[in-house]
């Protein structure tokens, strides 16, 4: 997991935000459109185009049959069953392409989210650093300690919950990127925190689960870490002309890439 995330980070940190992070519109227009076009071409390549066309025709034929012979109950039932069968064939023909396209689409999406969905923490805010222990970890959350760099202070906490969380409230003196160190037993892990300043890629969470791929702002935690997650909640970045936050970017990305795909399916000769 860790090498894969590092590789993706290396690639996308170069290709994303070519004009800096202040100008989100370029990436939020280009990448979904590009993803839509590439997905269309991949779809064309890996899908059974003839099978899809046949299934779509079959659905249309049987729907027409239902309309024309609506007085014939048995005929309507048979046509309905056949339409559903064709529908299942259509969906089946789409599973393969979906499986192929999902990983790269997800990778692009999570990178865009990390770059544009969040704002740095306001300097005057008092964010929480929440550490969750891994299931089965030998140490308890009460044993976790936190070291902070100069310019960052522990404002309150820790509160260690019996459910395996340790929580601190932090305070920054000035804008900047800080790195705190979370320790338990012999293990020591770092967590970055972005306070104030220009928009940038935001380090939200480190985790040792598969979800690490959703948080490319930092490396994943080692799979054998005593910590399951180390996280801070960041405010959504206001994107003015685009929907804000994780769900906003998610919706925009899918909506715009689908629109681009549908717009170009004719010129590219793709059966959807």
């Amino acid at each position: 997991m860790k090498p894969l995330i590092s590789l993706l980070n290396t690639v996308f940190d170069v290709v994303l935000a070519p004009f800096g992070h202040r100008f989100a519109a370029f990436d939020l227009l280009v990448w979904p459109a590009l993803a839509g076009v590439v997905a269309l071409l991949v779809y064309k390549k890996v899908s059974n185009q003839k099978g899809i066309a046949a299934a779509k025709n079959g659905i249309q034929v049987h729907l027409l049959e239902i309309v024309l012979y609506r007085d014939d109950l048995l005929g309507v039932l048979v046509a309905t069953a056949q339409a559903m069968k064709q529908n299942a064939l259509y969906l089946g023909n789409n599973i393969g392409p979906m499986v192929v396209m999902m990983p790269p689409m997800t990778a692009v999406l999570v990178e865009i989210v990390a770059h544009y969905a969040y704002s740095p923490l306001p300097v005057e805010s008092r964010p929480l650093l929440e550490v969750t222990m891994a299931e089965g970890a030998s140490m308890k959350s009460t044993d976790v300690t936190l070291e902070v760099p100069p310019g960052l202070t522990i404002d309150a906490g820790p509160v260690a919950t019996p459910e395996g969380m340790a929580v601190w409230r932090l305070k920054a003196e000035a804008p900047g990127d800080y790195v705190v160190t979370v320790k338990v037993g012999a293990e020591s892990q770092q967590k970055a925190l972005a306070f104030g300043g220009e928009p940038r890629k935001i380090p939200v969470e480190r985790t040792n689960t598969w979800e690490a791929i959703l948080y490319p702002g930092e490396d994943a935690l080692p799979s054998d870490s005593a910590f399951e997650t180390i996280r801070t909640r960041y405010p959504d970045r206001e994107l003015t002309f685009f929907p804000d936050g994780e769900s906003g970017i998610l919706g925009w990305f899918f909506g715009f890439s689908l629109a681009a795909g549908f717009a170009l399916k004719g010129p590219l000769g793709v059966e959807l």
Partner: protein
Amino acid sequence: MSRFEVVAVLATGALLALTVPSCKTKGGPDVPGLFVLGVDGMDPVITQRMMDEGKLPNLAKLAKAGGFQKLATVNPPQSPVAWSSFVTGMDPGGHGIFDFVHRDPKTYQPISSATPPSTDPAKAIEIGDTYFPVSGGAVTNNRGGIPFWDLLQKAGVDTEIYRIPGNYPVPDSDAKTLSGMGTSDMRGGYGVYTWFTDKEIPPKPNGEKPKGDIQVVTVDDYDLDGTPDSVHGTLKGPPDLFHIPPDATITDNDYLTAGVTFWLDKQRDTIYIQAGSDTALIRQGEWSDWMKVSYDGLPGGVVAYDGMVRFYAKELNPGFAVYASPVNFVPSNPAQPITTPDDWSADLADILGNFYTQGMPEETNALKDGLFDDDDYIKQVALVQEDARDMLALALARFQPGDMTFMYLSDIDLQCHMLWRHGDPKYADAPHHPAWEAGSAAKHKLDIERMYEHVDSLAGNVVDNLPAGSTFLLMSDHGFQPYTRDFHLNTWLRDNGYLVLKDDKQTGTIPTGDVDWSKTKAYNIGFNAIYLNEVGREGQGIVAPADADSVMTAISSRLLATTDPKDGHFVVRRVAKSKDIYSKQREAEAPDLIVGFDIGYGNSDQSTLGEIGTEELTDNTSRWSGNHLMDPDVVPGVIFSNQPLPVGGHYGLLDVTATVLKHFQVDPATGMTGKSIY
């Protein structure tokens, strides 16, 4: 926003401005704008003294450059009545708000003056145990008349009204309005808090119940390590209307709930709070930020309501006491509209973040109920002031030449109510208030002055930053007086033979049916109101309309002659017959008599809600220790202007409305009776 985006927005705006013809007819850059600060409860005597002492430099400068005068209030001088009068330019007989509390004449039950029960009963379809509303049941704003902002907006003046009292539920309007005092919390109450405690609350000496939800909790040892570390509780939200028959009375168990968990650290000086998907970490004595809680009206969130709450860690060691504010509407997604247009609250929240939406945001109930001490209370008042400061800065930034903006400030009113007991800011030689507390008086006796100073700094900021040529008015709806003695009006009516209880009882309440209406001529519901039990109007009336005037005269005479056995002071200064002082549009709904108490006296809360007690007069030992529900002549408000005020003028609230309209050459609506000051 990037530089490119800013340029794009500005360019688009400029193009639109060039292509779209101006729709303004009265306002616009050619007419100077008008900015009005409405400061609830600002008193002319205190203001003058503090200006003389150099404590209000901005207001003193304003008074010198423009003018400062007393402003007559309305009768009764209650905030919802007074602000409704300012809003509509009508007296209470015109707009129909006569008191905080009205009564249902058929049942004698107290009802909200702002939101009386719907006349169109709710109907629902029952499926299983779920009731799906079909029609009726809508609660509307009881205020009549036309708000001045509707007249201005119709005339093309861009009008923004911030935190206006008595405007909830929000009537339709083309102007931008945000409702203030009277806006409910999510439960539909006016400041229903939740108190999580590991101790039972001792009952109050007067038997009054706490105004919040008291949850006695245990600090559990979740992981059985010998250290108690967790507390679980619930926050009540809106009534569970999908599971209550539409005609049923809502009980304490009929509210939707959201869970909340508190985790204590080992030293018990900090808690981690989990409410909904939000979390907070606060030390003892700290407030959390707003935390969002959601309530599912139907399973799966098909119908869901968002609320927000903030917590105060009152005591974590050795006991456990955490206060949760009333659950406020979330301005970005309110369960009920609190603005016009509906989405303006979301626009404000985009800029300001979350802000108090509850009508009276100061936690007065916690202080009255003895859960907060003055330090706790003042700490929370500072949060409300922070909201007000930010909102005023936004209002000021949005204000353009030709616009009209009004903003309401609660600083002075509520703090005069709650903190007067620490030291009378009006009468230097006044004896200690009955609720004077030796421990905190020294520390808090100047708090009211600090509120005046805060208003002074806000007013100075507005004056300094208004576009050149703009007019600025600062006005208050009434002034203030000490409130040392409780008069129990219903008890007095009983003692004087106007109110009779059933079965020879001496005490009881109107709502619980203890009054013998076949022998009762008059009763009190509301802070200043007496209603006759009139034939044909009340459910079981006995006073013939022909006899009404003589009964009212007799009651008035006796009230005016009533003295306080403690010192022989007259209790009542004026009793007005509503038919003599109100215009006619809605006078039929008015109380028959309006009781104007003298300085220091007020009708008790118990009597206001229909209770008949043992004594007519008692010391007011409540922390609610300053008041204005008296004879309007003893509680005038103030008006400041940056334009010279005509010398020797005697102005009232309705005249301010007329002045606002005249400023923009807008004709008043029918029923508006004020005269412009300029």
